[in-house]
């Protein structure tokens, strides 16, 4: 069940207006929705766009305590915070707020260690499928065919499934969410906040600057990625996967909108051939099949 709007309106403002974020920033929507759902959050931010949009010292846009830390140190620093606050007997929520570069790639070992120790942390990965703060280079979250500054001919490999790696750690809660459905995102965060241990929420966060898309359609891209089956929404609790209401009907490929509807709105997919689109469609179906095994 989705949260009601009045509850969301009563939450404190966590992202103050007038910051460095680009117009139409998907990360900003993800951050303000997710972090506002938490009780007394302390946020750890590794190198990523979230370390850029905070604006220049000594001013900062984040209205919650924030620790900036090196790229591959988010979950370790958060482990330290969570343990220290436990030792001090303080009621806080320790959060990792990392991009896909920090989660899929360089920070994989640090979160794997923290997840294995089942540290009391909520790890958010806002996923825009490339390194956005350094100017749009490929990451292992980049989908096949996408043009980035380090894959000028389009990426040749498929996107990594970080969620399935995370699921192998048997942590208590995993969810995917999209900025196209903020209430669903907020609801999942709220649910996660009531669980102890390592929790992971992957958020699809379109980036108009890097994706070469119209800033105004950022939320629409979030919706389209769900409706085309590009980004399925689900939760994994105690090892059991449940597709979310927004996604369940797209388990059947026949119900999905053509993936082209999603691709054509983004400059990064402009040069894709029909063969590449076929391969991409196969990638998506493979992920659905693998996820379905966890149901």
């Amino acid at each position, binding site marked *: 069940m989705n949260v009601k709007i009045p509850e969301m*309106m009563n939450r404190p403002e966590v992202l103050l207006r007038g*910051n*460095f974020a680009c*117009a*139409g920033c998907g990360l900003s929507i993800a951050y303000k929705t997710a972090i506002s759902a938490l009780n007394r959050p302390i946020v750890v931010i590794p190198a990523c766009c979230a370390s850029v949009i905070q604006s220049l010292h*000594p001013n900062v846009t984040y209205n919650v305590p924030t620790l900036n830390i090196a790229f591959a140190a988010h979950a370790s620093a958060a482990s330290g915070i969570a343990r220290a606050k436990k030792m001090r007997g303080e009621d806080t929520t320790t959060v990792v707020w990392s991009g896909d570069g920090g989660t899929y790639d360089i920070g994989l070992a640090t979160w794997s260690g923290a997840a294995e120790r089942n540290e009391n942390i909520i790890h958010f990965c806002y996923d825009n499928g490339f390194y956005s703060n350094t100017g749009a280079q490929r990451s292992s979250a980049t989908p096949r065919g996408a043009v980035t500054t380090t894959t000028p001919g389009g990426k040749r490999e498929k996107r990594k499934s970080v969620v399935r790696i995370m699921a192998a750690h048997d942590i208590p809660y995993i969810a995917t969410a999209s900025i196209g459905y903020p209430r669903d995102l907020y609801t999942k965060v709220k649910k996660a906040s009531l669980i102890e241990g390592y929790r992971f929420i992957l958020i699809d966060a379109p980036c108009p600057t890097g994706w070469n898309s119209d800033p*105004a359609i950022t939320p629409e891209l979030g919706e389209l990625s769900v409706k085309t089956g590009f980004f399925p929404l689900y939760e994994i609790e105690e090892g059991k996967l449940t597709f979310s209401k927004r996604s369940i009907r797209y388990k059947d490929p026949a119900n999905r909108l053509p993936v082209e509807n999603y691709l054509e709105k983004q400059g990064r997919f402009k040069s894709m051939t029909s063969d590449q689109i076929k391969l991409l469609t196969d990638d998506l179906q493979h992920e659905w099949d693998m996820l379905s095994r966890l149901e």
Partner: protein
Amino acid sequence: MKVIILNEEIELKDPVLPLGRPTLGSAGETGDWRTYRPKFIEENCIKCYKCWLSCPEGTIRVDAHGEYPYIDYVYCKGCGVCVHVCPGRKKQKALEMTPE
């Protein structure tokens, strides 16, 4: 803190720590970035608050549930997300982009 060494008084300076404080308009008045501005048309608003939910900047303001939203033009970057998500009343949007 002052210490005396060889009859010489030395002032020990406090450390400068890398602390930034939450600030409204941390990047200045970002309304300057706009080339188009969203205009609110009250009679078409159904108070669904989709614009408020999706505004990346938090510049769609609502004082209380049940009230009409309004726009903080000092910081609104003019991305147009609010206009795009607005369902409006009878297909007439409550927000539209107009040139600055």
